[in-house]
């Protein structure tokens, strides 16, 4: 039996290290603290191994720092990414808010890095229980200016590892920061998993600062333009990149949608609940299916468009916030179907029976 068993937060660490992580900078916060804790134990275990003259398990993982603040963490990530290293930071909602300025700068400078947000209740300090209220912040901006993060939404401990690895591939491929957006449940939950095989892609980084020995040129990374012309050029480049990502990297899961008249849609933990509710409804003979976005940006608008064009006429949205994700679903549905929202906020996950009840209301 090769099945493993670990916390979502621990799976992220495992995934990042297998993806060749070189530096981790963070400040602890519930419910994301196990990430920095696990990194610390792996890092220092490797230093102990070296002291004993043994080989480290993760030879690439050379820098671990618990920074003095979230601001310091994100700026350390920016530094690490600037010289072409694979770097990452992790936090939870209030901490991610503090990082927003840095994230905007990183996006401007087109620096690949992975930012993990294990969402808790907000606004403000809110609560430490799971919510999905950072959806807008993650997919629509959060920092200032036109920019996009590649946002992945895992829904199991296995995907916490898998998506972390995938995010390193995507962020390096496109020179763009990416966010792993999971709710507190996924971070805290332990689950059985089989470790995913995700081939790790390596990309040349001729743009990285400090690589003078490559071409004798001094490489600088900057994003400040005092006249419009170069700014227009730079922003066009960003826009083109975002369009390419939107065209190539949309990911989603569908479940029992082939003959569905109703679809339930959710991401993260609620999508698991929704999937189970779909099964319960199917037992009652209801033609219902599930659509689960895996990339929240780029958002899978098309699957909603296609399904509601001549098949599905009712859509139930389940999310752990007032109604943020529902807005993107509506943009995909474009009025072709009735979209009903089932919001659950404050740290409570809906039960399978509750979602079933909402499905039955739509029948």
């Amino acid at each position, binding site marked *: *039996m090769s*099945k*493993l*068993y670990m916390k979502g937060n621990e799976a992220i660490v495992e995934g990042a290290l297998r993806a060749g992580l070189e530096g981790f900078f963070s400040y602890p916060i*519930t*419910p994301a603290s196990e990430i920095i804790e696990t990194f610390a134990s792996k890092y220092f275990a490797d230093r102990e191994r070296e002291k004993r003259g043994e080989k480290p398990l993760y030879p690439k993982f050379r820098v671990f720092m618990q920074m003095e603040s979230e601001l310091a963490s994100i700026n350390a990530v920016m530094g690490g990414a600037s010289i072409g290293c694979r770097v990452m930071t992790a936090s939870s909602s209030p901490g991610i808010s503090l990082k927003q300025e840095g994230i905007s700068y990183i996006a401007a400078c087109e620096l690949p890095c992975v930012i993990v947000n294990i969402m808790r209740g907000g606004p403000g300090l809110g609560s*430490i*229980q799971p919510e999905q209220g950072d959806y807008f912040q993650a997919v629509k901006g959060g920092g200032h200016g036109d920019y996009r993060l590649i946002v992945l939404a895992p829904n199991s401990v296995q995907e916490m590892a898998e998506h972390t690895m995938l995010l390193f591939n995507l962020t390096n491929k496109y020179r763009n920061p990416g966010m792993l957006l999971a709710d*507190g*449940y996924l971070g*805290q*939950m*332990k*689950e*059985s998993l089989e470790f995913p095989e995700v081939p790790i892609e390596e990309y040349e980084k001729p743009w990285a600062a400090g690589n003078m020995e490559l071409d004798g040129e001094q490489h600088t990374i900057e994003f400040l333009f005092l006249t419009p012309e170069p700014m227009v050029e730079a922003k066009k480049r960003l826009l083109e990149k975002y369009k390419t990502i939107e065209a190539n990297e949309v990911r989603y899961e569908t479940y029992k949608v082939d003959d569905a008249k109703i679809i339930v849609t959710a991401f993260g*933990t609620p999508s*698991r*609940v929704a*999937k*189970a*509710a779909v*099964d319960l409804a199917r037992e009652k003979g209801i033609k219902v299916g599930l659509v689960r976005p895996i990339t929240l940006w780029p958002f899978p608008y098309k699957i909603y468009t296609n399904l509601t064009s001549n098949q599905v006429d009712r859509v139930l949205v389940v999310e752990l916030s007032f109604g943020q994700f529902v807005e993107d679903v509506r943009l995909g549905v474009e009025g072709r179907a009735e979209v009903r929202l089932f919001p659950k906020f404050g740290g409570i*996950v*809906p*039960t*399978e*029976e509750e979602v079933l009840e909402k499905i039955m209301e739509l029948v």
Partner: protein
Amino acid sequence: MKTEIIISGFGGQGVLFLGDLIAYAAVKEGYYVTWVPSYGPESRGGTCNCQVIYSDKQIGSPAIAHPDILIVFNQPSLYKFLPRLKTNGFLFYDSFLIKEPPAREDIKIVGVPAFQLSKMGNMAMLGAFLAVVDQIKSETIFQILEEKLKGDKTKFIPINKEAIATGMDFVKSQER
């Protein structure tokens, strides 16, 4: 087959560890498993709980509305979770720490004076759980203890096994 368990008590009684052990054993026995702790300001003396699900199918919600099995180590936990226990469900309660007997007749009640039987009350309760529910093998639990308690900690294996045996023997003696 799907079993949903809520375990609750004071922080420091080994509530989370007990759930973790059952969950990990279920993983080893080939089930799909989720384990969710209550997290936050729980510390020694505060209340704390965890939710364990094992199933032969993939698990939807990791949160439990109505458990099949409830294991409680203090009065507040009993008050909080007893109404949610399924009809015909199992209630394991520490009859040494909880003086008031549970008032429900549609469930199977197993009172175990766990923290009187052993300093490791959680392990004694585990013994009772293993014997009564009969879904997880005690050999799997022993295998995990040997895996987790290595080096200096090897010496703790016998006392853990002893505590588990005490719980098992207790429920068997009650059956007679």
